């Protein structure tokens, strides 16, 4: 990992953290500029109590109705005008004349005519959409290469066939472009319309929050309308893909969306993100009743951060050109050409944003401890391969992973359920720490020769091959031994012995690590270690859960 890859997704996060910090430290006035955590809480509260949801639904209905009432006749009329000169001269001048009038300026007039109810709001949106779509559709039909019509006529097409096979498909891209622009207009307009004389809707909520000086609520509503805009844009883009398939390659249009993202996000690589969160909750469940919503949120947040990391890794590896299909067996949606780098990058940003939003919500709800945990994790993540003291290159990689993908995560998850810095939760994390460190070490063991050549100082290169083998035995064996020790000391319940079902797998891995030297022979050890982490970790968690009843 290079420094720049972190910077690009760190900057939005940093802005949020600075913002949060500036408010918490009293530099910014909380009344005027509420911190992101408060905005997240306002958003969650509004969504949970349904008030914001109701507003989004109302605004969406107005947009949808206004859009359909405007766009459908506009498309038909636009096509007709594009094909027929008489209609063209009747429609086009009027449309171009009215087009530059800001539609919001007509709202009072519309209200005078139609009253202040729903109709006037929808009519204003519909009017704007209608003009936008009419003008774009006429342009789209007019700009179709006349020669296509010649070809059609030459090959015997009558007027109807010509319309269906030439005029319509040839102008469709421009028509859809008009729809997209009109949708943007509708979104802007609805907010303005709802500012005045509405008693619900997102625009109303924003204005109302302003009048009550509830700035956090206002920002939450702004976030939501932005999200609505994003959803509508993505929806129209998908529709374009369906209606204008010839603009995209066959491969792209045939590969289902879900399958593409599944391959890019690699959800099967998430055990490192899931197991510690589940373990923390399972340990806490022995003392308190679980807050399931928070457990679910913690899982989503953890997975989002892991997913964002995967996506960003893909993006930067692709940009640097270091990835080849041989190096990365599992990833590489980019290499397969399923997705563009920009899609990956933005998906990564969104994943990080979701993870950070959830984190900030927890900070707000439970206090600064989670913030410290989060900041330490980000710092360790950053200094893992970057900066003058890159942990991974001074032999501290295993230790960092041991602490942060074990006790820190488990404690964080535990803390959400029971806000106590509890030593038992830290002890309980040890078996998971050992296996997760074993994954990293299996990687270093495999790459020991190339790392020596490249002067990469990992614990494996420092210990030498035989020392590194011993380290692998210690880490894998340590997982099982620590379970026994914890049970003996009363720090773990006896049903966690169920994790010993994975002892044969661990034994096979150690045998391979003991005998093989070639990197490609050691690669299965790496994969096996990841599998071991998942199965051993899940069984260990299940042991804790079973112990709730026995």
């Amino acid at each position: 990992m290079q420094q720049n890859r972190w910077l690009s997704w760190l900057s939005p996060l940093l802005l949020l953290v600075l913002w949060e910090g500036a408010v918490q430290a009293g530099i910014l006035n909380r009344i005027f500029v509420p911190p992101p955590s408060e905005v997240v809480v306002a958003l969650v509260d509004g969504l949970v109590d349904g008030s914001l949801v109701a507003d989004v639904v109302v605004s969406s209905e107005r947009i949808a109705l206004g859009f359909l009432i405007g766009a459908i006749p506009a498309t038909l009329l636009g096509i007709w005008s594009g094909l027929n000169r008489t209609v063209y001269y009747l429609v086009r001048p009027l449309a171009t004349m009215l087009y530059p009038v800001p539609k919001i300026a007509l709202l009072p007039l519309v209200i005078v005519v139609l009253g202040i109810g729903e109709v006037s709001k929808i009519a204003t949106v519909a009017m704007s959409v209608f003009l936008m779509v009419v003008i774009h559709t006429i342009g789209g039909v007019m700009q179709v290469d006349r020669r296509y019509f010649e070809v059609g006529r030459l090959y015997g097409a009558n007027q109807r066939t010509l319309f269906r096979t030439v005029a319509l498909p040839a102008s469709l891209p421009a028509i859809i472009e008009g729809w997209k622009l009109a949708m943007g207009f509708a979104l802007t307009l609805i907010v303005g319309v709802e500012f005045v004389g509405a008693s619900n809707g997102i625009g109303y909520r924003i204005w109302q929050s302003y009048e009550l000086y509830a700035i956090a609520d206002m920002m939450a509503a702004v976030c939501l309308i932005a999200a609505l805009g994003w959803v509508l844009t993505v929806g129209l883009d998908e529709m374009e893909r369906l209606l204008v398939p010839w603009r995209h390659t066959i491969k792209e249009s045939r590969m289902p969306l879900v399958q593409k993202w599944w391959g890019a996000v690699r959800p099967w690589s998430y055990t490192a993100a899931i197991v510690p969160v589940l373990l923390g909750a399972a340990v806490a469940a022995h003392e308190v009743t679980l807050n399931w919503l928070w457990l679910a949120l913690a899982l989503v947040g953890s997975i989002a951060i892991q997913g964002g990391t995967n996506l960003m890794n893909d993006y930067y590896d692709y940009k640097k050109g270091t990835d080849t299909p041989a190096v990365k067996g599992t990833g590489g949606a980019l290499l397969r050409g399923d997705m563009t780098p920009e899609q990956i990058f933005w998906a990564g940003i969104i994943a990080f944003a979701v993870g950070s939003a959830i984190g900030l919500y927890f900070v707000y709800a439970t206090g600064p401890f989670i913030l410290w945990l989060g900041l330490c994790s980000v710092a360790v993540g950053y200094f893992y391969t970057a900066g003058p003291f890159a942990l991974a290159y001074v032999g501290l990689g295993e230790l960092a992973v041991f602490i942060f993908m074990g006790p820190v995560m488990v404690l964080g998850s535990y803390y959400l359920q029971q806000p106590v810095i509890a030593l038992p939760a830290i002890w309980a994390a040890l078996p998971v720490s050992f296996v997760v460190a074993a994954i990293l070490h299996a990687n270093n063991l495999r790459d020991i020769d190339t790392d020596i050549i490249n002067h990469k100082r990992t614990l494996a290169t420092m210990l030498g091959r035989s020392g590194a083998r011993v380290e692998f035995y210690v880490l894998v064996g340590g997982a099982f031994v620590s379970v026994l020790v914890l049970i003996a000391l009363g720090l773990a319940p006896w049903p966690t012995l169920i994790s010993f079902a994975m002892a044969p797998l661990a034994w096979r891995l150690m045998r391979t690590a003991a005998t093989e030297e070639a990197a490609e022979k050691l690669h299965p050890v790496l994969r096996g270690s990841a599998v071991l982490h998942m199965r051993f970790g899940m069984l260990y968690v299940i042991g804790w859960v079973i112990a709730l009843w026995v």
Partner: protein
Amino acid sequence: MQSTSPIVFERVGLTYPTGVTALTDITLSIAPRSAVALVGPSGCGKTTLLRTIAGLEQVSTGTLTVAAGATRAMVFQSGLLFPWMSVADNISYGLMARGMPALQCRDRARHWAERMGLQRFVDAYPHQLSGGMQQRVGIARALAIEPDIVLFDEPFAALDAQTRLLMQELVCDLQRQGVCGTMVFVTHAIDEALIVADRIIVMSARPGRIIADVTPQLPDVPIAQKRALPAFTQAFADIWAQIRSEVELQMHEEVR
């Protein structure tokens, strides 16, 4: 087919509404199932002449008679495939427009795709094909309707030299198989005209008239050998001598 000429021009002139005269005094009769090439300096009206046969332009003076009921197909310079249709749909477009059921269309499209070496691309969109492949689709679209007259409008001008050779071979093959009916081929390349046609009409600079009508009698041998024949070089030199002054005239016209 009938032995009378399917295409007859009698003192045809064509003046556009803008006042530009594209053709004057064209008298020409094309024999059934023959292959005729029109050559001349660019802008000489050879494409216009082709378009009148296709029915895409109306003559201003004189008469043009195209045999009643003769189906016409055209291969365009830039391919002019429909970008929104798959290769198969492009090929069967003429059949579909004439009301052939979709399944049968699909069948014919497959048949012609195979004949043109396009079988792997039937579901592709035109933009995914190379220029040569696109032009094969254009030819397949023309031949699929089993036309009596096939018009080629500088179909290979935009292709690279090797692809052009390959496509010329293809046209010669198709002609030998007798699927091109009466063929009129517009080109600015004299060698291409000599390869694909057995009769060459040389046109003057605008306004276009016919200044030579050559039938070089070359044996039917592979392209590479044909080009090396003394008769070929002789015919090339003769035609070039006819065109040369016209091209120069055209150049001066453009400067002025």
